[in-house]
């Protein structure tokens, strides 16, 4: 754009203001993420439904527990603790697992779906860069889903506690112990840490790979995402009779050796929360590097690819 040297300063400032945006990259990213949530309500609906189904099951089992306790010996404190602690963990695992599955299917469709239904023409007609688009799609499994599953898990565990308080009141179970053992603060901090580190950072290369395949695949992204690892494993096994690749994938899926699952909550868990354990893991940094390469490739591909 040619700028007119004799223009009034105010006017040139104004025109600069409009041509340089008025919409910041952060704002564009925000709207892009909202757009993803509009298009994919399953991102929050699936974990919510998992939570509701779980709560229903929990309600039935707590009712039957109360029924059985009539005439039976009341549970001692340790038994009660074990019983409920397992269930809290199970609630968390169920919701996290659901979010993981949603994240995988979401990522595989994220850049493939817009090419298949040709809406890529519409998205590309707006001043949103390919980088911001891909980042917004990566943010769903890496940030939004972990935070959502955290919030839903905490709410579910709170409702479980309320339900058991109401149902078991006066049945001989020590309600006070129930509340004490729930130890919300411990469990939720560990859970949040686990979600953000393992699901957010450790799994980043996995989601990066899924997005890359989604940006590239001419059809059937699911097949293209899962077939190559099998082929690589098979070739390595045949050629060298080793399985380094399989081990590498297994390690990645299992999480870092010193990352805590929520059930590892020990009394001194605050000490283990200090992030240097996790950030000292070399696998984390290679993983993030690989994720960055996949991300870069996905951005380039999105620029090149038209509808299919």
């Amino acid at each position: 754009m040619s700028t007119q040297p004799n223009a009034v300063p105010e006017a040139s400032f104004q025109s600069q203001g409009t041509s340089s945006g008025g919409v910041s990259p952060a704002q564009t990213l925000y709207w892009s993420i909202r757009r993803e949530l509009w298009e994919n309500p399953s991102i929050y609906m699936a974990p919510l439904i998992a939570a509701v189904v779980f709560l229903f099951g929990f309600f039935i089992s707590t009712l039957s527990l109360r029924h059985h306790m009539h005439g039976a010996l009341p549970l001692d404190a340790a038994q009660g603790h074990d019983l409920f602690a397992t269930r809290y963990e199970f609630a968390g695992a169920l919701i996290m697992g659901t979010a993981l599955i949603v994240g995988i299917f979401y990522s595989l469709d994220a850049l493939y779906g817009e090419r298949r239904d040709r809406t890529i023409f519409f998205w590309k007609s707006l001043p949103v860069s390919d980088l911001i688009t891909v980042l917004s799609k990566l943010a769903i499994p890496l940030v939004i889903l972990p935070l959502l599953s955290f919030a839903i898990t905490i709410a579910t565990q709170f409702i479980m506690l309320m339900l058991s308080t109401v149902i078991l009141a006066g049945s001989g179970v020590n309600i006070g112990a129930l509340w004490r053992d729930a130890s919300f603060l411990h469990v939720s901090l560990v859970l949040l840490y686990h979600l953000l580190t393992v699901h957010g950072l450790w799994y980043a290369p996995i989601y990066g790979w899924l997005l890359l395949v989604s940006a590239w695949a001419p059809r059937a992204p699911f097949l293209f995402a899962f077939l190559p690892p099998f082929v690589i494993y098979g070739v390595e096994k045949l050629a060298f009779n080793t399985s380094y690749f399989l081990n590498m994938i297994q390690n990645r899926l299992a999480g870092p050796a010193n990352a805590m699952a929520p059930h590892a909550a020990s009394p001194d868990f605050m000490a283990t929360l200090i992030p240097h354990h996790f950030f000292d893991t070399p696998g984390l940094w290679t993983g993030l590097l690989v994720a960055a390469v996949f991300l870069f490739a996905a951005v380039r591909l999105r620029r090149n690819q038209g509808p299919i």
Partner: protein
Amino acid sequence: MTVIEARGLRKTFGTNVALDGIDLHVEQGRILGLIGPNGAGKTTALNAILGLTPYQGELNVLGRDPWSERDQLMRDVCFIADVAVLPRWIRVSQALEYVAGVHPRFDRRKAEGFLAKTTIRPNSKVKELSKGMVVQLHLALVLAIDAKLLVLDEPTLGLDIIYRKQFYDSLLNDYYDRNRTIVVSTHQVEELEHIFTDLMFIDRGRIVLSCSMEEFESRYVEVAVKPDQAAAARTFKPMHERQILGRCMFLFDLKLNSANRQQLTTLGEVHTPSIADLFVAVIGNQSAMAQGATR
């Protein structure tokens, strides 16, 4: 101000040459009609201008390189691609909200004003709208953006005549002014010939004709000649001839031809040809396949 400047623009898909080194120059305030048979390279040329496809050669749109600066370019350029591409899941209100969120030059109130004139409800999803309504919605979004260049690739394909007429009426009445530039590719030439200021025929990746409408009107004449005069007319070397209702229609290019307008009036009734007739004369001569494109 030059809006689009292309030199030797070339694009190949494998061995298939989609654009064979075209030159393009579009000034601000023009309405350019890009006309060509299917597969001529229209969409490829428009996609290159919009930064949707890489190309060889030089291309400059509003001072930018479209391929490397698409996102910045889209602040000043709007387009409607050749098919309805609005996402089917989106609600009308969400579409307005999203475009308002990411586009610095989108005037939401203006878009709502356009929609108020239609039967589209804000709460509807795109998949519940008819094809004509989807185009109305897309047009409302695009016309509410204060852009310098609007590119339309077959925007009214598959619409009935009422929607088509409304589409071009709102384009001219509510949007177009001397500061804006519009590039339209279309097959529906008859409905649009009165809005074009410039005309470009493209065939097999090459520009076969490029002129302003003033030039078109002064340069090409069509003469309806009685059959007994046909032999006389042929001596003036017409570029095309066809039979219609017992008359021979001869098309002359006055620039290339020794004949002048006066001499031709002695042969029969003289008038300006329609763009469609010229299109058939220019492109139909080269390829019978082009017939299908001049509905």
